[in-house]
């Protein structure tokens, strides 16, 4: 009847409104979730310290190991200014190298991991235990150039990769000195106390590598090793043209795994733990996660191997400096955030993919600042 019909219509309208409201809430919740995901891991910048500690031509494979990790890390977004690469000897331009300026990872010379734009920060005799510890702890002479420093802060995720010859509790540097697991653990503790890292991923590919992470006691460290105590890490395959073994097994399979990863992939740490089963590696890779607070299932590979730029969304407006150049106002977004232009204004915009959201940056970000206020556009 007359009263019932409007009631029914009301009911329908109310139901529809409720549904819309729920959808809206869900949608809003979804966007909120997406925005939340930005801040899950808590880091704002990524660093990598990649160390090869072996000298002499027959240790070609250690240089190839380090360079393949370097290549992956660069490909996934960490810039050279955030990578400290230490190579104890020069293989690419070694007089014994039949193909100069190349370091191959696979026989048949498929992949040149040396590349065309490599930047080695510590090379040859500079790779010593002292320099390595100084890089980690930041106790560096004041005249050290910036490319040789690890300028991390408390929101940095650092990847540390070491390879070379090692034994039970030590790693040999350049065949003349060694670093023990106690020293390494203490260095990490110094880093923690100086708030030089947010989370640390430590990967070591040497014989008896698991002994190197036994003594860690600082929080937020995941450690991976290529072999257990008492086992040797083996090399993969020799190349008859070059005459030496090209890579170690663990890093070879890790490189294969990393080649599948792209900056937006969701592979997590558990996949990395399984990268080299005993059937392929002959040794038993090990890992240690008891010092880590998050569940490795939730830790993305790109948290350590890739590069992150965090965006903090602000709702307040900032008054512009009249001398700003290089920016246009976005007519769509009424509230916008500006980054004041500086001497480095003339840079091409860059894009980062992160969790499906494209962020277009007008300027490169200085590494030291954590969160930045910046102009961003959402592109779908």
């Amino acid at each position, binding site marked *: 009847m007359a009263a019932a019909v409007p009631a029914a219509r009301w009911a329908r309208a109310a139901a529809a409104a409720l549904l819309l409201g729920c959808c809206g809430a869900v949608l809003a919740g979804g966007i909120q979730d997406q925005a939340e995901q930005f801040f899950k891991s808590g880091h704002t910048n990524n660093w990598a310290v990649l160390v090869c500690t072996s000298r002499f031509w027959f240790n070609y494979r250690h240089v190839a190991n380090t360079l393949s990790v370097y290549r992956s890390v660069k490909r996934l977004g960490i810039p050279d200014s955030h990578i400290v690469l230490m190579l104890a000897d020069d293989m690419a331009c070694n007089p014994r190298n039949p193909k100069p300026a190349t370091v191959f990872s696979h026989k048949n010379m498929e992949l040149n991991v040396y590349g065309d734009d490599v930047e080695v920060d510590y090379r040859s005799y500079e790779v010593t235990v002292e320099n390595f510890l100084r890089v980690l702890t930041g106790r560096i002479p004041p005249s050290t150039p910036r490319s040789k420093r690890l300028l991390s802060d408390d929101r940095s995720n650092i990847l540390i990769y070491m390879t070379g010859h090692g034994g039970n509790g030590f790693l040999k540097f350049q065949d003349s000195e060694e670093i023990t697991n106690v020293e390494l653990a203490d260095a990490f503790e110094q880093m923690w106390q100086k708030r030089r890292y947010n989370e640390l991923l430590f990967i070591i590919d040497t014989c008896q590598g698991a002994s190197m992470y036994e003594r860690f006691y600082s929080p937020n460290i995941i450690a991976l090793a290529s072999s257990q105590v008492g086992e040797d890490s083996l090399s993969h395959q020799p190349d008859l043209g070059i005459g030496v073994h090209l890579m170690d097994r663990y890093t070879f399979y890790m490189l294969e795994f990393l080649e599948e990863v792209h900056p937006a992939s969701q592979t997590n740490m558990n996949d990395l733990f399984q990268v080299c089963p005993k059937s392929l590696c002959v040794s038993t890779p090990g890992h240690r996660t008891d010092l880590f607070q998050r569940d490795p299932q939730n830790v993305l590979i790109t948290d350590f191997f890739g590069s992150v730029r965090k965006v903090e969304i602000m709702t307040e407006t900032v008054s512009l400096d009249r001398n700003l150049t290089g920016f246009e106002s976005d007519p769509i977004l009424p509230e916008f955030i500006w980054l004041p232009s500086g*001497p480095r204004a003339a840079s091409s915009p860059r894009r980062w993919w992160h969790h499906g959201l494209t962020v277009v940056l007008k300027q490169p970000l200085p590494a030291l600042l954590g969160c930045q206020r910046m102009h961003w556009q959402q592109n779908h």
Partner: protein
Amino acid sequence: MDAVATGAGNNSLPCPGQAQRDGLCLHSTAQKQQHQPTPPLGRTSTATPEAGAIGRQDRKRKWVGGAGGHAGGGAGAAAGSGAGAGDDAGRAAGGAAAAASARGGRGRRLPVPHAVGRRPAAGGSVDKAWKELSNILSGIFCASLNFIDSTNTVTPTASFKPLGVANGTDHRLLRYAVLPREVVCTENLTPWKKLLPCGSKAGLAVLLKAERLFHSSYHSQAVHIRPICRDASCLAVSWELRQTLTVVFDSFTSGQGKKDWSLFKMFSRTLTDACPLASESKVYVDISPKNKEKQLLEVTPTPTSVHEAIVQGDKTTYAVYDLLSPVLFNTSRSLNVQLKWKRPEDSSELSTPIMHAQRYVSGYGLQTGEISTLIYNTHPYRAFPVILLETVPWYLRLYVHTLTIITKGKENKPSYMHYQPAQDRKRPHLLEMLIQLPANSATKITIQFERALLKWTEYPPDPNHGFYVSSSVLSALVPSVIAMKDVNVEESPLFTSLFPSSDGSSYFLRLYTEPLLVNLPTPDFSMPYNVICLTCTVVAVCYGSFYNLLTRTFHVEEPSRGGLAKRLANVIRRLRGVPPI
């Protein structure tokens, strides 16, 4: 450091290659008319320009703020200036311009990064600035230049002079260091390429791919900075940055025995366009006719022009390809310069240069040795003097009383000699001499040395490789057959010499000899381990036995209770209750 600005007062220069490296900008300073940097440069005598050598020139526009940046990439002729003395904290590392150049050979281990710097401030701050400069350069160019310290730095008196617009010649402000052990590889080429305005993305630098460049007989890259007049009136001074790359490809052995070459064969890529920021972008191909005959060689495609210049006293003709001219890319998108020899190759000799040198170490054993330097003057009738600079590390103790200089069998006394003896672990030997080279002669300079025993912590991780002695530097004004005229920098930057001569009768040449490799008496570093093993074994065996002898007491033993059978019988007897046997 302030930027040289034409009035805008803009202190901030755009930094090439800024994307990767913060704070490593090329600054220039013009607040004082300062002493000028002296880059060493030159070609070794061994890199003779054969027909078909390419001279390339890529001149970049002046930067914002008038900071006069010429970036010339060129092969062959006089390399230029400039140090990328970047300063990350904005400190006034001042007008310390340095020339950093790095050379490496594939077959021969030729020189080495070395740097020369001059700092206008006084005394002790020169060394401080020198240390800072070498550290900064090591960061920029990914080389271990931070190993430059007082043990390999010298202060030459006569071999190096300030270049460009120079005011004073106080040699005490000059520093020179060489690192013979350094390697030149892709990691040094990468920052070098990043100094170019277009990087390696456009222009001539697209040819510079590391895999091809290092597969060569000789590779050298240099960065030079010098101050020049900004314009003809010379009221203001700008800094000129010159980057040079010299590569000697062995196309004869890798090109199936033919001397023909092309850009594609050498670099595996071709030129497609000029760098948009370049004001000039040219390719020069040496097509000088030998023996004044008709052309033996042919270049394709047709060059846009032909240029004649006098390079090192010889008249050379160049075919010029101007990448900025519209006619060049009319027919095809890419430019592949090719050179073909019309006749099969006769065995024509390469002409020997007027001055060339070599150096070697002789002697036997690990106690003494002798360094010999041979300098050749092949000019038929002109004699000229040469300044020889030798830097020998302190652990080779030179005996200066054994120094002999012999030319054509007779002793040759140097007209100027400066010797600074070494101090152990503090500074190296420095020997500078001005020697007159008679025409058509070979001069031999020998000096004996004794090898020192280092402390065991001072040995590098691979001491059995040997220790390097850096190359010696020969500087001379070589008489030229043809009168050289001064070339205007604006017209052809490639052919301006860094060392303009006062008269046209000679040109300046700086040669670097080979570095030497000597073995020092090296202890056996496995000895501590062996000693420990041996000592522990001896101690365990001898002392243990001795201890046993002293402390063990001897008892008389009961006679044995018999064999197994008797014991079994005893057991059975006991069971039976019968007393045992």
